[in-house]
């Protein structure tokens, strides 16, 4: 039996270690339900397919709209994936324990969002070149697309975490979550599509890529704070 029961703080975990544990936990949990992870990617593929069906099978026409199509599909898929971020923890009571853990909630939620990006955003960046090829994008542009979607999806995950935290416990929150998240994600769409467009034309796409990076950095610094405030409010 533990006799040092009243001296817990001396063997306390550091914030970084706690964040690492949270990351490991979320990844382990997601890998146990691998089927769910595929859904946003399947959605991305389906949405990308809708455009040729709706516009034209000619690759030359599709190439023109490819940046917009890819990024809109990426935005909508990341929106779908946001369901998996906080909702399970809120339902089984573990989110409450995160708040009561004595650790910085901001750090813990940041770790959760990083795990979420690794499981949904990064795979999206890997899939994007495949979708791009189907829209007639030249192979030389593909590396640029992977990088821009990878960075952009970081920003999208972080912006989305705010909306996901705000709508915890709201029934049928899909439409509301989109209404909250999409306007805030428009700058990501603008810069990401521009970067993809330049990559397709073979021009240097560094400026919009830097802007995308700036949005991601801004998201990293501010979004977990807002998400933590929103989580606390949902538990009040």
């Amino acid at each position, binding site marked *: *039996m533990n006799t040092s029961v*009243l001296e*817990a703080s001396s063997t306390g975990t550091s914030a970084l270690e706690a964040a690492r544990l949270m990351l490991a*936990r979320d990844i382990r949990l997601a890998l146990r*339900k691998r089927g769910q992870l595929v859904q946003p990617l399947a959605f991305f593929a389906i949405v990308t397919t809708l455009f040729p069906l709706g516009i034209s099978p000619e690759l030359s026409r599709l190439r023109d709209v490819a940046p917009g199509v890819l990024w809109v599909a990426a935005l909508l898929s990341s929106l779908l994936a946001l369901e998996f971020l906080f909702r*399970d923890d809120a339902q089984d*009571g573990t989110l409450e324990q995160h708040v*009561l853990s*004595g650790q910085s909630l901001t750090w813990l939620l940041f770790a959760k969002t990083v795990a979420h990006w690794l499981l949904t955003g990064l795979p999206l960046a890997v899939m994007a070149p495949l979708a791009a090829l189907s829209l007639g994008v030249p192979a030389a542009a593909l590396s640029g697309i992977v990088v821009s979607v990878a960075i952009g999806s970081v920003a999208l995950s972080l912006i989305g975490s705010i909306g996901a935290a705000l709508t915890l416990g709201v029934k049928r929150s899909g439409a509301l979550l989109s209404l909250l998240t999409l306007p805030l994600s428009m700058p990501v769409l603008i810069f990401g599509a521009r970067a993809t467009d330049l990559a397709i034309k073979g021009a240097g796409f560094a400026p919009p890529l830097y802007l995308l990076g700036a949005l991601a950095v801004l998201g990293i610094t501010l979004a977990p704070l807002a998400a933590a405030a929103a989580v606390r409010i949902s538990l009040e």
Partner: protein
Amino acid sequence: MPERRLQAENLHLWRGDRHVLRGVKFCVNSGECLQITGGNGAGKTSLLRTLSGLMYPEEGTISWCGDNIRRDLAAFHADLAYIGHEPPLKPDLTAQENLRYWEGVRRKFATHEMNNELGRLGADQWANRPVRTLSAGQKRRVALAGLLLMAAPLWLLDEPTTNLDAAGQRLVGTLIEEHLGRGGLVVAAIHHELTVSAAAIRRLELSSK
């Protein structure tokens, strides 16, 4: 053993239009247990959540060891173990994994310590099955093992004996007694009689109106 005290002064809480807590005040010292009683909707859960800092009272203060808990909420939480109605366990993780992640965020501990506590609650036989395969009573036992593992001086418990058989209920009583004996404090919404000596137990009745 350091002396600790939890004190609540003049707590008022509204949920929408309902005045749920009306001037609640009490004081719990080391080695004492406060038993909260009251009918459904009387505010037992609201009181516990307010004491844990999850809910914010419109009026009144809560102090831990003389300091307002709002001054350093993280430090208060490090001393606090709160178990709500539902055992906070991830269904897809095993009992051991749940404890590893739940407690590891709070403090480092050795694996044998965790297995000891699981054994104490009689949960070691099913410790490496996913929690979703366990019955409600088994889940409750795992959550109580987590409570012990937290090694926190203040326990806030909301119906800790739910879904437990008679042996389990007696065990909870024993665990509380031992905790009090070590100088711990307990505030619990618990409706059955605790096997704790009369001197150590106080009662607070909440009424719904």
